[in-house]
């Protein structure tokens, strides 16, 4: 009762004083300004930075620091009306994207002691007159407090203006007292952009810094600088002076996103600067993105890129073991579409969302401090924290150098159990056990790593910080002399190392991908690579190589991180020397690249591995591979594989009974639909009936390429061909590219081969498809058809006929009957095994390739029926002929006693030894031997008088009983037809006038008008012939050409048996003639044996003996 009376008295007193005017209380008093750091330094000015900052921070920041964002005073009063008058330093009305109430207005809150803050509306009772502003809060009747104390008020200053004077008035007689900032106050320091400064809240109290200040009951120092938050070193120097802060917030991405290249460095160095002076938690905050990211995603991309860079910095901070740093993501802020005013700044909805995210995160930080010494927590508390930090340094997984994933699971379970024990305050003896388990598991993690195994590895980035490449692994590859990155799953070829264990226990790492590795699918990141990069580097296991190693950007002189592993850097030399010059066209400000974490990933993709191996091969190895491929063909030839028409593999195609249908498909068009077909149509011999897969999306879209599958049941094959019949109704649905797969259980499929560009003919037989082993199921998976109508994962196809045949050795395959082929083929097969080993070892030599090719050729020769004897004989015969000619020369004498033509009766063919394929009508063969040059024989020189020949005009001689093995002819030139003499003549010989053997070509025969007669050189035919034909390839003028050659004219023509000239160069040497004749005599039989392929070693040595004999004489 007594208390009430006192209160009443006070109120009366205060109310009475209304009449007497107001009492004003200048806010310019020491120690009462909340939201201001450096208060003692700043003195009595309402600004956010002390004068010392001017030389450290950019001028833009310095100017903005004079805005009073976040500053507030608190006071207690019992007044019913509160008056505020203040002087602005700038115009009250400057911005379109915020109301004056935010830019230049004040904002009032109140609370009962210890209670929540509540807003006091100004009810539009404000005035702005030039730079003078007033606010009046009237009609205040707060409910009484329990202890009768006066309510407390908090008055926020303008967010986007400066204030030179600020005064709070109450009616006379009312109580009034400013609240001092506690000496031990630990503020939250919020550094950021215009958003942090408050744009575009409706009033100062709705800036997120103000909201969290009230709801977390904490003084907040607002260091938001509109458009100027670029994390400069000097700004961090200033922040670091606020050692008393309980939390640092770094929320600069919405500004610094425009120069993303600087984010990682700026953040890292800034955090380190703060950490050097304070253990307080540091919160890194992403940009909240854009509310219109659905319709204008590119605006948001800039934010995403900035955020990615901040995340990168955070990863690095964690890796370096810097404690007590936290992270707030864009998703956690969760801006909604209503939350912005123009696409850059949040309105009140956005501010509320920001504040909610901050409050939740800060509460988490308070509940989960991450300080090195764990505060007052239990020992297990500290252990859990320490363990969590150390875990960030370990990489878990199956890659070499990584710690097995099982240990990750184990430690996570232990930590969860420990956290539960801590949270439930149930840590007693069991916690000793948990701690022991955690320690021993960590020891296991430190010592257990997946072993290095010999093989091929990518170097993969575990980090997702590249520009547009968030969220997946990147592998290195080379392009020219530059290193590039590309998404691992899109790589066709990557930068790969071969790692092999050495005898001394070290490992060799060999750069096995060369500059020929080009992947044009890369995203264009390009960095210059040191040319000594990792080539044949020797590394020490367990120390030098690691799951984590680092790339440092020396161009920017960023320091190496102590205790980190990086490849081959025992002396601290560059591992990768990156030039930033070509780093990014879109980010010219990029000067830094930062750190990335990489690890080894085994190459398991067989295609990639094949490509690596191919690239690593020497030219010799590649040639040997080609030789092996040729040899395989040769062996096929030897085996004479063929399709046996009598062994069709597909006999049953009952569409109604799968047990009697060998065909199946994943995409059979359902029956009774628009157009469908039966499996049975494939065997009915009629291409107009067909089988067809789904070609109408109504009936589904297969998730795999459409296939036709055959079950061979009891007739599995290891090689086959198929015969394909194109559907005459659906020609554009015929197979073009098909992958052949094989299986024995119908579930596990092995890809055998891909047939591409199959012919578009009506029917065709496939090439022989060798399976490598016996398979029962074959699948033909169609990748492309003529028309390529894609339904689901692949094109629809239609077939008229389809049959498969096993491939067998032909009955007459040479190796079955021919011992030589058999033996040579086996030899080649043995050689191929060895050659494959040499290819694998990449050690092929030119000599070995030559050897291997000879072995291959042996098989070819054997298939051709050749034996080494007959081949030897072949070359001996050639040599013998040369020796004989050398001995005798080709100069022959036309001895009249040896005339071979005696009959030329034009009226009686029986008695005419001459024959021409195209005589001019009424020309006489008799003129050739009448001894008169002026009478002549003419071949057809006017096509109107006979049938032109298809080939050359020729003159043929039947020697009848005077068959000869060497001849010479005497030619008499007719002077009347000077342009018609023979110039080039091909000589053929025959014994039946049907089969002709080419002997030789005579060239440059004399055609001059001074020539009357001439004798030819000796024409040695090496065996006896009855018929000799002279085909005239050229005459003196080559005109006229009748049919296939020029017409000719001869005055006289006689053939003689050739007799070696007395003047032959060697015949004067004793024994040469005999030796030559002996050799000559042996040649016919040798030729016969060569031809019959029946030569024996004796035959060979006989000829060789005779030849050696002659050669010895000639050489002497």
């Amino acid at each position, binding site marked *: 009762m007594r208390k009430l009376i006192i209160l009443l008295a006070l109120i009366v007193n205060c109310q009475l004083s209304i009449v007497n005017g107001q009492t004003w209380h200048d806010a310019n008093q020491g120690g009462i300004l909340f939201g201001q750091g450096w208060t003692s330094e700043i003195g009595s000015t309402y600004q956010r930075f002390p004068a010392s900052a001017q030389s450290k921070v950019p001028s833009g920041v310095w100017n903005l620091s004079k805005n009073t964002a976040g500053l507030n005073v608190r006071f207690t009063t019992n007044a019913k009306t509160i008056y505020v008058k203040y002087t602005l330093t700038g115009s009250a009305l400057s911005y379109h994207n*915020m109301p004056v109430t935010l830019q230049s207005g004040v904002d009032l809150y109140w609370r009962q002691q210890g209670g929540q803050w509540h*807003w*006091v*509306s100004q*009810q539009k009772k404000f005035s702005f007159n030039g730079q003078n502003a007033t606010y009046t809060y009237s009609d205040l009747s707060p409910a009484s407090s329990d202890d009768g104390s006066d309510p407390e008020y908090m008055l926020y200053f303008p967010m986007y203006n400066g204030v030179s004077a600020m005064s709070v008035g109450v009616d006379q007689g009312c109580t009034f007292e400013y609240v001092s900032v506690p000496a031990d106050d630990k503020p939250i320091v919020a550094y950021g952009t215009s958003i942090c400064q408050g744009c575009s809240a409706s009033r100062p109290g709705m800036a997120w810094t103000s909201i969290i200040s009230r709801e977390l009951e904490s003084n907040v120092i607002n260091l938001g600088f509109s458009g100027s938050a670029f994390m400069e070193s000097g700004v961090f120097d200033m922040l670091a002076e606020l050692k008393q802060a309980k939390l640092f917030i770094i929320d600069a991405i919405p500004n610094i996103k425009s120069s993303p290249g600087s984010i990682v460095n700026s953040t890292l160095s800034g955090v380190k600067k703060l950490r050097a002076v304070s253990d307080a938690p540091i919160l890194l905050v992403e940009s909240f993105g854009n509310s219109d990211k659905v319709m*204008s995603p590119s605006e948001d991309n800039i934010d995403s890129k900035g955020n990615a860079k901040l995340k990168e910095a955070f990863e690095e901070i964690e890796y370096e073991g810097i404690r007590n740093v936290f992270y707030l993501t864009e998703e956690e802020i969760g801006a909604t579409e*209503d939350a912005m005013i123009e696409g850059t700044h949040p309105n*009140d909805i956005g501010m509320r969302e920001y504040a909610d995210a901050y409050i939740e995160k800060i509460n988490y930080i308070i509940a989960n401090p991450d300080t090195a010494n764990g505060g007052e927590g239990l020992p297990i508390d500290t252990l859990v924290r320490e363990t969590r930090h150390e875990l960030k340094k370990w990489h878990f997984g199956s890659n070499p150098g990584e710690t097995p994933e099982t240990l990750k699971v184990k430690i996570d379970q232990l930590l969860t159990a420990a956290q539960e024990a801590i949270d439930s305050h149930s840590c007693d003896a069991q916690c000793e056990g948990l701690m022991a388990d955690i320690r021993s598991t960590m020891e296991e993690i430190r010592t257990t790593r997946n072993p290095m195994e010999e093989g091929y590895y990518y170097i993969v980035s575990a980090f997702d910080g590249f520009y547009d490449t968030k969220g997946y692994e990147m592998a290195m590859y080379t392009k020219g002399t530059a290193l590039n990155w590309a998404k691992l799953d899109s790589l066709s070829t990557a930068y790969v190392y071969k790692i092999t264990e050495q005898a001394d226990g070290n490992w060799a790492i060999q750069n096995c991908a060369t500059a020929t590795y080009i992947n044009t699918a890369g995203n264009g990141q390009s960095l210059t690579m040191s040319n000594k990069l990792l080539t044949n580097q020797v590394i020490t296991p367990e120390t030098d190589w690691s799951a984590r190693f680092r790339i440092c950007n020396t161009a920017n002189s960023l320091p190496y991180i102590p205790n980190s592993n990086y490849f081959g850097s025992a002396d601290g030399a560059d591992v990768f020397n990156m030039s930033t010059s070509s780093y990014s066209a879109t980010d010219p400000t990029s000067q830094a690249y930062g750190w990335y974490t990489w690890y080894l990933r085994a190459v398991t993709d067989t295609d990639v591995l094949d490509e690596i191996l191919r690239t690593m091969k020497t030219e010799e190895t590649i040639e040997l591979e080609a030789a092996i491929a040729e040899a395989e063909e040769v062996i096929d030839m030897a085996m004479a594989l063929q399709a046996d028409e009598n062994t069709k593999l597909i006999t049953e195609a009952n569409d109604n009974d799968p047990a009697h249908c060998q065909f199946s498909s994943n995409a059979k068009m359902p029956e009774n639909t628009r157009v469908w077909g039966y499996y049975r149509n494939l065997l009915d011999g009629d291409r107009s009936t067909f089988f067809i897969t789904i070609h109408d999306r109504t009936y589904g879209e297969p998730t795999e390429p459409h296939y036709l599958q055959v079950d061979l049941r009891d007739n599995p094959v290891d090689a086959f061909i198929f015969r394909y019949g194109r559907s005459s109704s659906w020609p554009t649905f015929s197979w073009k590219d098909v992958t052949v797969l094989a299986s024995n259980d119908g579930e596990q499929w092995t890809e055998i081969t891909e047939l591409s560009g199959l012919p578009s003919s009506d029917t065709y037989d496939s090439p022989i498809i060798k399976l490598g082993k016996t398979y029962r199921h074959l699948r033909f998976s169609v990748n492309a058809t003529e028309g390529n109508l894609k339904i689901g994962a692949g094109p629809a196809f239609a077939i008229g006929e389809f049959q498969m045949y096993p491939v067998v050795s032909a009955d007459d395959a040479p190796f079955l009957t021919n011992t030589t082929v058999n033996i040579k083929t086996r030899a080649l097969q043995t050689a191929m095994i060895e050659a494959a080993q040499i290819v694998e070892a990449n050690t092929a030599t030119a000599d070995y390739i030559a050897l291997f090719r000879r072995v291959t050729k042996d098989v070819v020769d054997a298939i051709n029926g050749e034996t080494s004897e007959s081949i030897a004989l072949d070359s001996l015969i050639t040599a013998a002929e040369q020796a004989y000619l050398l001995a005798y020369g080709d100069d022959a004498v036309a001895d009249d006693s040896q005339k071979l033509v005696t009959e030329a009766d034009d009226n009686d063919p029986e008695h005419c030894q001459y024959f021409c394929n195209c005589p001019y009508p009424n020309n006489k063969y008799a003129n050739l031997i009448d001894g008169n040059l002026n009478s002549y024989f003419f071949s057809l020189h006017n096509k109107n008088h006979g049938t032109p020949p298809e080939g050359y005009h020729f003159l043929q001689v039947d020697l009848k009983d005077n068959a000869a093995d060497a001849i010479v002819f005497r030619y008499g030139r007719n002077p009347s037809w000077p342009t018609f003499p023979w110039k080039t003549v091909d000589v053929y010989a025959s014994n039946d006038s049907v089969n002709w053997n080419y002997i030789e070509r005579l060239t440059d025969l004399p055609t001059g008008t001074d020539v009357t007669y001439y004798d030819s050189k000796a024409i040695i035919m090496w065996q006896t012939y009855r018929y000799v034909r002279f085909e005239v390839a050229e005459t003196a003028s080559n005109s006229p050409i009748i049919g296939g050659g020029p017409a000719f004219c001869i005055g006289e023509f006689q053939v003689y048996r050739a007799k070696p000239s007395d003047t032959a160069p060697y015949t004067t040497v004793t024994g040469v003639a005999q030796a030559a004749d002996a050799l000559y005599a042996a040649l016919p039989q040798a030729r016969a044996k060569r031809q019959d392929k029946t030569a024996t070693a004796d035959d060979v040595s006989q000829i060789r003996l005779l030849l050696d004999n002659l050669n010895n004489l000639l050489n002497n």
Partner: protein
Amino acid sequence: MKKLIILLILTVSGQWSMVNGQTWHDASEGGFHIFGQGWPQLSQKKFQRLPITEKSKLNNVALWNASQLSAGLYVRFRTDATSISVRFTLTKQAVQHYNISSFGQSGVDLYARSDDGKTFHWLGNHLNYGFGTPATANFRNIVPQNMEGNKECEYMLYMPNFNGVSKLEVGVNEGASFQYIEVPEDDEPIVVYGSSAVQGSSASRPGNSWANMLGRELDAQIVNMGFADNAKLDEGIFKVMANLKPRVFIIDAMPDMKTMPQLIKERVVAGVKILQAMTNRPVLLVESPGAPDRLIRPGQDELHTKANEQLREAYDQLTQDGYTNLFYMTQEELGLNEEDFLDGINPSDLGMKHYAAAYAKKLAYIEENKDPIIDAVEAIEDKSQAADLKSQTIYDLQGRKVTGTQLSEGLYIINGKKIVIEK
């Protein structure tokens, strides 16, 4: 300072792009259609909320002037543009009110709309704007496919809430398609009558007024009859609104009426009767949200409470008089929080959001529980054509449902037709 310079550059380059490579579509030269207008056939396609023909009925110059502001008006168009520019001429200078940003007062606001009207996505100008003559707003790097996968996309462009628009042009990048959307003839809008909060103060931008939020939420045309400081429940405005046939009338005038509580009951009763004389369409009476700082200003809140009490009495009176299809929304249902206001009267974006949510919920309730619609018709029919009256729902000319079996002599609305009952 640095930022200001950047802003300037952006604005200049924004104008440059308008000059180059934009195809302009003048919304004030015909071919366009204005949504949110109750009298489109009378407005001569001007961005005004009441046609000149209604001026005399109003008999209130301040109200008439307020009706010439473009609050709640919008155009719809379809385009495959990747860049949309807007230039418009304001009837007043775009000088800020102290309690509203330029965007809220004089800005335009763009949303993409899905074809089924169920999804809307906002587009920001990213500081590419100007408030000169003409004023401009540019929207760039649009990916229309992101809306529904189509190359073309429909947009709605809100006009300023506290300014008038005398000329509007929409520019799209050259070669882009462009087509204004027509207002459907049989569309039944929602008519919202009220104070400055209805007109949109103090949303940060036009699209965030609760009336516009509600329009998107329901994909409905809202006829915005919000007149800041002039929502005095005048007879004239009810006469004007009585010509409309909306799906619901919302009467949300208490914030302006709290200073004259003695007039509330009388005016509300009279106003509703004027409306229901023409149609029995649902009428929703809405309380004031109260003083946000009532803890420290119980006296202020008392004014709101008293006004609300008067409104409640009006509702009760109308119900007693037999008027049905009446609905009522309380302060508690509105559920605004103390931080939801900018100045104690006008909600901020946060408050707008809470307003819109409360309305959406209430309108869904009304949709479920409203009476069948009986519009007054001109033709009066002979009693002989009145079939068995007992099975009919019968209304008197005031829209009151008539109960009991004995009808006195007079004119009644039966089965949607006026029937003369003679004794």
